[in-house]
């Protein structure tokens, strides 16, 4: 808000932005969805309890295909939990937010630099895929001082508003079906309200409909649409930030994400000095690129370091990539304090100790 007051006003001081302090999270996500439907980028910032409140609307945005951006500054859950402490415990709640079969794009920044980069990208992805996009920050990134490289912006970059059919396209008589997969990538064309006097109007709804947005409860029409949504999610894999890998063909690997990055870098160095060399992969988005699964397959065992009790990213990896759970060893730190190299090392070494098998005959 502070920056918008200076940077998003015209020469006369008129605003090119608006902030609405909504009465609750249901209204804030509703306002974001209304704006996204009408062709304006909008976002809401929240934490876990807010995500819980927003889930009905998130299902609508997923199913009716409306762009929305959410910044989730994750804190210690469940319930009010540890509201002033940090965790990465909203991963599953966001990845599958809402009832029915839903999946959402998550971006996993490692600090302020990527929060900026992914923040801008989130709006492009939301428009491109016409769906909610979550930037999964946490309280450690959001409230603690962290170092990052100076922010920069490529002035030649254009905003990606995705597939929007404008007046000229409608006037030219191009076929418009709001949920018609013209390009085979699962992403359909939309129109903004008010574009053309006679063409391009459609009805947006949370109920099932055919490719031309007409209400339908026909089984095959429903299934086609649900399959297309999966196809769209598949397309998104090559648009989200790719994982960052350091792979030297070692026996063990480690997967981590988000604010664990600095502590992980330190832990990897210290473990190497103690004789344990690890290959690393930092996941930066969901849906996962194919390289995540390939990384796991190349290693005998992979540690998954995260800041929650239930190893949520590991669960997501097992569920989405059908990875053998035995190959993924959880290393979880979730006492509310930011993760440290010490905690990671202790966790990994404890896991390794469990793996050590002493032959029976050597026991006295």
């Amino acid at each position: 808000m502070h920056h918008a007051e200076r940077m998003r006003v015209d020469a006369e001081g008129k605003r090119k932005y608006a902030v609405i302090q909504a009465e609750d999270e249901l209204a804030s996500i509703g306002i974001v969805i209304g704006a996204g439907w009408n062709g304006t980028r909008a976002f809401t910032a929240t934490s876990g309890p807010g995500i819980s409140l927003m889930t009905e609307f998130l299902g609508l945005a997923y199913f009716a295909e409306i762009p929305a951006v959410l910044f989730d500054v994750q804190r210690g859950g469940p319930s009010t939990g540890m509201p002033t402490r940090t965790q990465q415990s909203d991963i599953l709640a966001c990845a599958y937010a809402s009832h029915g079969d839903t999946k959402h794009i998550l971006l996993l920044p490692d600090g302020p630099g990527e929060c900026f980069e992914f923040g801008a990208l989130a709006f492009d992805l939301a428009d491109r895929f016409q769906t909610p996009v979550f930037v999964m920050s946490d309280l450690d990134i959001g409230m603690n001082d962290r170092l990052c490289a100076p922010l920069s912006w490529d002035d030649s970059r254009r905003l990606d508003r995705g597939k929007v059919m404008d007046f000229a396209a409608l006037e030219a008589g191009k076929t418009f079906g709001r949920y018609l997969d013209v390009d085979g990538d699962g992403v359909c064309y939309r129109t903004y309200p008010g574009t053309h006097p006679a063409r391009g109007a459609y009805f947006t709804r949370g109920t099932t409909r055919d490719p031309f947005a007409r209400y339908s409860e026909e089984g095959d029409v429903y299934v086609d649409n649900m399959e297309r949504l999966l196809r769209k999610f598949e397309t998104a894999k090559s648009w989200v930030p790719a994982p960052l890998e350091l792979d030297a063909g070692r026996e063990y690997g480690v997967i981590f994400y988000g604010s664990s990055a600095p502590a992980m870098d330190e832990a990897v160095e210290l473990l190497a000095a103690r004789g344990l060399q690890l290959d690393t992969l930092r996941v930066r988005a969901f849906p996962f690129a194919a390289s995540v699964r390939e990384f796991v397959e190349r290693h005998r065992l992979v540690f998954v370091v995260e800041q929650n009790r239930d190893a949520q990213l590991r669960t997501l990896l097992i569920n989405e990539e059908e990875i053998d759970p035995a190959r993924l060893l959880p290393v979880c730190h979730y006492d509310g304090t930011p993760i440290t190299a010490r905690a990671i090392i202790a966790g990994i070494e404890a896991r390794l100790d469990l793996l050590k098998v002493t032959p029976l005959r050597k026991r006295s």
Partner: protein
Amino acid sequence: MTYLAKPKLHHPDLPRNQLGLTHRDYEGAISTLCAGCGHDSISAAIVQACYEMSLPAHRIAKLSGIGCSSKTPTYFLGLSHGFNSVHGRMPSVLTGAYMANKDLIYIGVSGDGDSASIGLGQFAHSMRRGINMTYIVENNGVYGLTKGQFSATADYGAVSKRGVKNFDEAIDLVTLAIQMGATFVARSFSGDKRQLVPLLKAAIHHQGAAFIDVISPCVTFNNHKGSTKSFDYVREHNAVVNRPDFIPLRDEITVDYPAGAVEAVTLHDGSVLRLAKCDHDYNPRDRVAAINCIQERQQRGEVVTGLLFIDPDAVDLHEEMGNVDTPFNQLDDAALCPGNAALQQLNQSFR
């Protein structure tokens, strides 16, 4: 029946408005509501109001929540974009849409369950915000889609079709809207098109949060003896405080009323809303007096209808915020992105 488009065929001599359109051009798909439903009369009134005002249908956005009433946007303005959102949350979606493009006309359609029960919070807050919209509640006091349970606007003591008495007090949406700061508040009856159509026109024309509570009897579940939302009950207890006549700026004023019987409200652009006074003491520009009158009449069992409150000088939220004249959804990259030079200055400020 899942979806039926109406045939486009119509009589070649149907009258046309200033845009050269007939009223048929403002219709939607065939209604799937029960025959005789009050909601269909309201849809017809919306069609008539938009046709007579010569509004370009594609510049109207129609939004709704969930319920019988919220199904109706399918049945009018087929050339407009529509949005059937989630239960009780239409106001927030409409708010976001209005922020995105201030140049469209927003019609929100909701019901008593949608706005007074699950969505009371969003209803109240949207009235506070100066959103330029016409918010219509099609009020029948029951949940028609789920077999006629009472909603929060059902009167205390009303009897349901199954013979069950309502023990809860009713929420009066017009009083609440006036209290919350709506700048145009009216109540009407789906069976009184003569009153409803001018009210709709004036509400659409109004630059701010306009709310119309339309009593719209449910012919299937709430039109029996003992109901306080039946056609017969409303006709017998309808206390009309005024009959509006909306005259756009461009139209010559031709209707003559006896002096003293008419109150003329001049709107922001010079259009005139003329109110034929049925109740000479009623002052629609005084919030407190309006609330008092509505509540006193209510105690006597009367249903007050007409234009209940108006602030003709209302200012909408965009103007209040000092936003640019270009709708937000038409701002280009250059207007939206301050660029790298501005970012580098920002970086410096962190050092």
